[in-house]
């Protein structure tokens, strides 16, 4: 099949997505897909067109096992053992020693030498640290994104300081490419800097509005 002829390419892509391309022709098409970006684009365009039909499917409540299975596969809970379990005890001791090392080393690792006692870790709901924030003696914040994140291109994460009942004060845009960024402390924030750090995600194109609730939040830790 001459997949370089656009009309044929397009009609094969359409029937592939619809599912009417079958048997040996389907297998041949799938092999060609791997090597031809134009074919993959045609398939993506047909998926965008034809799967608009999905919205008109009948709604049927899925069995609850599906969600339970998803939770089990994607978010496995840490195993619970009785307190006297020696393995757990050993793990606990190991964890304690690791924590001790982290507490001793963390100021040198995560904060510049002039940093004072302001440190915060922003975690996602799986308790993985996404950013660390360290406050330097001059008031500036050193923000580290611990690993690059896949962000939608039109969205950004913003850091806010929420103290008391007032609206949160924006501190700046958080790096999402695994880099470190220094943010000046806004003049309106007088030391001592207290309260919670909030993270929000919002479109790049719109002016940031103080949020009423955060996507993630954390407190300053003293080191």
């Amino acid at each position, binding site marked *: 099949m001459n997949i370089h002829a656009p009309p044929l390419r397009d009609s094969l892509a359409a029937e592939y*997505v*619809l599912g009417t391309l079958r048997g040996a022709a389907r297998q041949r098409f799938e092999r060609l897909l791997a090597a031809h970006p134009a074919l993959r684009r045609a398939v993506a365009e047909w*998926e965008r*067109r034809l799967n608009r039909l999905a919205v008109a499917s009948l709604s049927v409540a899925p069995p609850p096992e599906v969600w339970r*299975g998803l939770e089990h596969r994607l978010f496995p809970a840490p195993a619970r053992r009785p307190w006297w379990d020696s393995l757990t005890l050993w793990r606990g001791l190991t964890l304690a020693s690791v924590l001790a090392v982290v507490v001793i080393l963390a100021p040198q690792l995560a904060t510049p030498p002039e940093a004072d006692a302001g440190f915060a870790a922003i975690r996602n709901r799986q308790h993985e640290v996404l950013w660390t924030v360290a406050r330097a003696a001059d008031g500036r914040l050193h923000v580290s994104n611990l690993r690059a994140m896949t962000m939608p291109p039109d969205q950004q994460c913003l850091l806010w300081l929420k103290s008391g009942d007032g609206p949160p004060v924006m501190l700046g845009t958080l790096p999402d490419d695994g880099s470190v960024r220094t943010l000046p402390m806004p003049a309106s924030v007088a030391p001592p800097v207290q309260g919670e750090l909030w993270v929000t995600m919002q479109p790049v194109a719109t002016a940031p509005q103080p949020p009423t609730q955060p996507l993630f939040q954390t407190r300053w830790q003293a080191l």
Partner: protein
Amino acid sequence: MTPGESLAALLARCALHDRRAFEALYQQTAPTLYGLLLKLTRDRELAADLLQEGFVRVWQRAGDYRPTLGQPLTWLGSIIRHLAIDRLRRGDHRRRGELDDDGWARLADDGPGPEERLHGEQGDATLAGCLETLDPEPRRAVFLAYYEGLTHDAIAARLERPLGTVKAWVRRSLRRLKTCLEEDA
């Protein structure tokens, strides 16, 4: 999580590994996608398996979603339906007989068809308008292929029309849909 939060916003949060957003996305979209899978596979167990597999991919690929790929439900439908068609066409799946309990009767029921639902509040009036430009039989052929996963042969048998006619209907209908949707864009 507000109930009205858009699916696009939920997907964006899933990309940041926000489990609550994933759960909200699942609650809002799984019934539609499960309905799609049930009709495609006619097999509850397989439909549930595919739904789970599909949402694992959704969680893993949420960061790949772009508005240029269509509405969020279109994108989710692409992931889920691709898995289903792939399974059906690989030929290692034998269709089971139709289930005869209430749930299946509801699915098999002719009731309000896709056209009516496309015209509804949550529907897609543009797509509905384009489908209306097709003649009834070719349109039915496209629906049988999309919603029931039928091949050309099976559609020909169902509509009691020659295979060549059905193939031409499907080919022409797809071309007309493309033109119509592009005119609208």
